[in-house]
């Protein structure tokens, strides 16, 4: 039985359909890029030809200690350590001061790149946030895709508002779909009927929507939460709770050191031994670290170790830098005993990013994202094809086709743009953006021709398949490692990603040009070509 009467049901269907139609294409873009962004780290490894390990490099520990004796005293207030996409260690020594250009309190200090091969400093720069935290060449492709998902590359906070609203639309669609569907559990196993094209589309949409309902809701809720907490929540807390004082807010939200304040000079314990101790305790190597008051007796290092042994959340662990002693786990947010906020925040992240169980959870999250894309597109198709007698809806139907195949095509052409610049000292971000726009123009040029729907789909599929087949070849031809090199150097992920592309290309080709045709594909009425 439906939860609402017929009139309410009709209104709800209108809300479900129209909200999906108005924002459906953007929603598809955000959900598909989100599904791809689950593999951002793997894409980074694949595109740069690196092993892809983000664990802190113990070989860089000596260089960090050496730098501590060279840099200005105030830069040792805080040191951030992490590994970039090429596997080199980044050490940001900094203090906090007002940037005259922005008028904001920012990090100011030196950014040192420590080579993974030699353990020596290979690059030094000095400045504020824009210098300390630049977009790195090797991260351009993964960064571009991730930002497209997070804020559609719109300026802050508008991009976050947009994706937050899209998250709410997805939640509304999931809830209204749940209310509208009369026989949710009874129809869970009913395969799409072939008696008519529209009925088949409706069945496909409802079936996929029913199964993906729980995680559609979870992903939409957590996505909207992150968009709004960053764009609205944090600024409100900052204004109302701390009178706009960023430094005081940061101090309040940052876990406190259990060490007694002592500014007397002290030696720096071997960081590699601290890394090894943490790995022995948790089963996970540290992926980033933050040191405060380096060179003092009260210096503390906080290292993040990812979840292990079936846990969902990773944890921060503190050590004394002066004597290397373990100080215990640190809450993710704040300094109190009650870490509920930190746990809630961490759980939201784990459930949205799907990165809590390595490749296993990531693979499942990619599948969830693709299933949601399917629900999105079949819903839009159902809506437009019911109204095909109207020229406006015919055009919208064609634009839906262009988006369906065009978005994955632009991802592939973005990667091509990256490869065309990465190993040739070019600007990788510019290359990636040019690749994206080339794919966009190509998709619209192919899709807006005066051809029938099936031909449009086939030409878009052909270009998509070709671009996916070309990518592994282009990667190797532009200086990336071949399969044997990648496997022997411990970069098996590169081969996996290449194979994934080839298999996906094969699946698309088989679906569109293979011998087995779905009975209804040939019967799809041909829409009037868009002008």
């Amino acid at each position: 039985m439906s939860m609402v009467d017929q009139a309410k049901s009709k209104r709800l269907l209108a809300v479900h359909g129209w909200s999906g139609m108005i924002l459906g294409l953007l929603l598809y873009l955000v959900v598909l890029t989100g599904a791809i962004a689950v593999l951002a780290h793997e894409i980074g490894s694949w595109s740069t030809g690196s092993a892809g390990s983000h664990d802190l490099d113990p070989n860089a520990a000596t260089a960090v200690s050496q730098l501590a004796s060279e840099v200005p005293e105030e830069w040792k207030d805080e040191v951030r350590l992490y590994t970039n996409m090429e596997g080199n260690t980044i050490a940001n020594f900094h203090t906090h001061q007002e940037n005259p250009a922005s008028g904001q309190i920012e990090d100011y200090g030196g950014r040192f790149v420590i080579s993974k091969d030699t353990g020596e400093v290979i690059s030094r720069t000095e400045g504020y946030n824009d210098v300390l935290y630049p977009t790195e060449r090797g991260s351009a492709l993964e960064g571009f895709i991730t930002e497209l998902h997070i804020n559609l590359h719109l300026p802050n906070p508008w991009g976050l508002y947009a994706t937050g609203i899209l998250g709410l639309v997805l939640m509304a669609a999931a809830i209204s779909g749940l209310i509208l569907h009369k026989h949710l559990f009874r129809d869970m196993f009913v395969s799409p009927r072939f008696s008519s094209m529209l009925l088949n589309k409706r069945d496909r949409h409802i079936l996929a929507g029913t199964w993906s309902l729980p995680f559609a809701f979870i992903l939409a809720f957590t996505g909207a939460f992150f968009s709004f907490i960053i764009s609205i929540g944090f600024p409100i807390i900052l204004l109302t709770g701390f009178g706009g004082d960023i430094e005081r807010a940061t101090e309040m939200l940052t876990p406190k050191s259990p060490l007694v304040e002592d500014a007397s000079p002290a030696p720096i314990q071997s960081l590699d031994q601290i890394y090894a101790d943490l790995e022995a305790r948790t089963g996970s190597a540290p992926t980033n670290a933050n040191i405060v008051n380096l060179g003092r007796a009260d210096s503390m290092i906080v290292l993040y170790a990812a979840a292990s042994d079936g846990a969902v959340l990773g944890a921060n662990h503190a050590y004394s830098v002066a004597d290397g002693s373990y100080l215990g786990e640190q809450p993710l947010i704040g300094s109190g005993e009650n870490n509920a906020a930190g746990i809630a925040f961490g759980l939201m992240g784990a459930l949205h990013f799907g990165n809590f169980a390595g490749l296993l959870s990531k693979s499942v999250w990619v599948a969830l994202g693709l299933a949601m894309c399917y629900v999105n597109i079949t819903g839009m198709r159902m809506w437009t094809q019911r109204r095909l007698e109207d020229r406006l809806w015919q055009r919208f139907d064609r634009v839906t086709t262009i988006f369906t195949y065009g978005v994955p095509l632009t991802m592939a052409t973005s990667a091509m743009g990256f490869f065309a610049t990465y190993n040739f000292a070019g600007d990788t971000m510019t290359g990636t953006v040019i690749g994206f726009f080339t794919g966009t123009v190509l998709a619209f040029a192919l899709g807006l021709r005066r051809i029938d729907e099936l031909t449009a789909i086939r030409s878009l599929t052909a270009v998509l398949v070709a671009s996916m087949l070309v990518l592994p070849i282009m990667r190797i031809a532009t200086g990336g490692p071949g399969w044997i090199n990648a496997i022997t150097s411990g970069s098996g992920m590169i081969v996996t990603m290449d194979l994934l592309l080839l298999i996906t290309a094969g699946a698309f080709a088989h679906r569109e040009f293979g011998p087995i045709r779905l009975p209804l594909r040939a019967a799809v009425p041909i829409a009037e070509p868009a002008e």
Partner: protein
Amino acid sequence: MIVWSTIVATVISTVAIWLASQRNPKRRRSAGLKKIATAPLVKWGLLLVSITPGVALVALGNTSGFICWFAAITVIGWLVAVKRPSAA
């Protein structure tokens, strides 16, 4: 161990879901196939077998495995259901 227990749990649930789908009366009726007589014990037994692996993962302390299993089942269930049932 954590990964393998999750995979085994997912495979067991997949088999149970597939068997349940093959016997689902509405699914068979809508595909124009003959109904397969299924005792309530079998019907509820398959439901139990499809859920138990997830419960077992939680009991073993494999929380991340449980979330993976649950998410995977929502995708696998759809892929099983979307395929037209065979006449057998």
